[in-house]
């Protein structure tokens, strides 16, 4: 059942207070909570961080909006803290990384299937296969560096298989740009999708940039460098989708609507009642914030906010395993490459991107090195009874087949 965003006025913003105790709650259980509980937490943290990033940029360009932006940004700050702090400290940074890629895969796959615009759906499928490959590379690192099975995080919902090999994902900047939707013609769902996926990717980029240096192992440090680079490309790609002709206020209103939209999806699907109560609380908060921005929008731009945001929000994004869809995309589209804003077969890839890759990969490719012959097995590759006990001990190059 979809939500009528104009009927529900939520909690007024002057009643939206959190104490430190509210913000720092008992985290979820890494072991006992469902993987999709963690997926929603990570996604919603990304949504809040995107809201904050946007708000800052908007304030730099709009003197008259600085106060209301600061007021809502402060609440977003509290929301983001509460949500992000729900991750327990028993997640190693690499385990959290696995969870981030699970978010990217499952949410992007769900979005790709419901996106009404075929070109944009293609963009999501394209990005999907890249994050899918990141999962494989990071799983190999987790197994071979920390001796852990990434499936303890994934809970069998998400595959650990090679996707579009990360080695082919690095592109010249001109091949990361995409066409945008038309703000007057695009479906509301299209706008929610673009904001949501951009939000997820920018927080993933941010996270990798922060935790990459926490690793002592040079291979791990290189792998984070390599994949953070792709996440920056993904942000570049996805943020192109949003029409730059939207006004600042229009974008602000859409950000708030998107927060409502996603909290509503979490309320609908969360099974842990303690976490669900948080989503319900924040849904009320966001509705209050939405109506606060709506008033400013309508006063300033003299147009009805229903021309931007429909009364009935679209159906929420589904939080469930998209294995079959992902594999279907993998079969059909793994060889796609980007050329400008278009997608082409690998045989027609742009020269600029090929040259770019040659240069950046000249001293070896960590995503290849880390995953050499890696085959996921329940309990880790050492747990495979059909293989030698000593799987992939350190060997010198001379033992490798080229």
């Amino acid at each position, binding site marked *: 059942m979809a939500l009528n965003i104009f009927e529900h006025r939520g909690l007024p913003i002057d009643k939206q207070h959190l104490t430190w105790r509210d913000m720092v709650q008992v985290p979820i259980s890494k072991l006992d909570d*469902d993987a999709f509980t963690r997926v929603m937490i990570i996604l919603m943290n990304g949504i809040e961080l995107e809201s904050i990033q946007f708000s800052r940029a908007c304030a730099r360009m709009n003197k008259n909006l600085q106060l209301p932006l600061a007021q809502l940004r402060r609440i977003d700050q509290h929301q983001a803290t509460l949500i992000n702090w729900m991750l327990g400290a028993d997640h190693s940074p690499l385990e959290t990384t696995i969870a981030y890629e699970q978010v990217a895969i499952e949410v992007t796959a769900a979005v790709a299937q419901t996106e009404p615009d075929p070109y944009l759906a293609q963009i999501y499928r394209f990005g999907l296969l890249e994050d899918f490959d990141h999962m494989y590379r990071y799983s190999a690192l987790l197994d071979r560096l920390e001796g852990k099975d990434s499936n303890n995080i994934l809970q069998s919902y998400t595959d650990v298989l090679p996707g579009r090999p990360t080695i082919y994902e690095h592109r010249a900047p001109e091949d990361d740009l995409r066409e945008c939707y038309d703000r007057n013609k695009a479906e509301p769902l299209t706008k929610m999708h673009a904001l949501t996926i951009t939000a997820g990717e920018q927080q993933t980029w941010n996270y990798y940039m922060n935790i990459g240096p926490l690793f002592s192992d040079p291979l791990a440090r290189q792998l984070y460098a390599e994949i953070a680079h792709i996440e920056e490309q993904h942000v570049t790609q996805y943020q192109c989708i949003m029409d730059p002709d939207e006004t600042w206020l229009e974008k602000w209103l859409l950000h708030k609507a998107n927060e409502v939209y996603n909290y509503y999806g979490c309320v609908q699907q969360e099974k842990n009642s303690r976490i669900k109560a948080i989503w319900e609380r924040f849904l009320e908060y966001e509705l209050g914030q939405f109506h606060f921005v709506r008033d400013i929008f309508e006063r300033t731009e003299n147009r009805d906010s229903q021309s931007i945001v429909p009364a009935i929000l679209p159906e929420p994004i589904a939080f469930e395993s998209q294995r079959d869809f992902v594999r279907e995309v993998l079969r059909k589209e793994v060889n796609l490459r980007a050329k400008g804003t278009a997608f082409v077969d690998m045989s027609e890839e742009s020269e600029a991107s090929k040259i770019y890759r040659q240069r950046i990969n000249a001293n*070896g490719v960590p995503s290849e090195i880390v995953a050499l012959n890696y085959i996921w097995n329940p309990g880790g590759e050492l747990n495979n009874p059909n293989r030698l006990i000593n799987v992939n001990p350190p060997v010198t190059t001379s033992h490798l087949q080229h």
Partner: protein
Amino acid sequence: MKDSAELGLNKTPTQLHPAMTQSMVEGCEEFPPHAEAMAIDAFDMRKSYIKDSEQLGSVPIPSTLRGVVKTGVQAMQGNSPTVLIDKLGQRLAFERSGVRLYDALITKCQAAEPSLDIGVLEQFRNDEAEHFALVRDCIIAMGGDPTAQTPCADSSGVAAMGLIQVLNDPRSSIPQCVEAILIAELADVASWDLLVQIVREANLNGYIEKFQQAKLTEDHHMDTIKKWLELLTLNNDSSAGNLEDAASEEGYF
């Protein structure tokens, strides 16, 4: 807070999802690994970094060995003063962190029932603080600066980070915390043992006995903590085979 984990809620076993797991395994056949580029492998890559690496940092050697002479050392025998200063700095740092580990365990025991004997924990905590002071005095007597962080202090600090995480997590159980402390105490015992040999080699005669005494105290810590862990973990009701933690409920300490 419960002392032993409840059964049945854990979602990590693949057997909870047999169909999905089977599908994952089968996927590996349809989508096998393939090497796109292997100019170098993990070993060569890591080797190149290991060869090019600099150390964590350098040992801050006192500008003069005057202090060393005063304490009765004719000349640094055997080991260079670098090793001595580095290992003293490490012991200093680890004992200081040890105080904080016990602080965390005492907090947890005071906050939750059942608990360990807090008097004993406080005694051990104060022992760690005394050991810290002992090493500090030794470093000062040698003309060293006890506020410096030496490379070995740094690396053992990195190693201890996991212990600090476990002990300060409100969700960790008392047995889990005791086990983390045990790791620290096992390291303590071995490290004091080594340190005694180092000061003996260096002819730091004024400290050999004091360090031997510290080693004996650490032996006592380790034995006590190890025994506690056994009591907390082993099933008293051998017939039932249940997983309830009997030791914690009865208050053994």
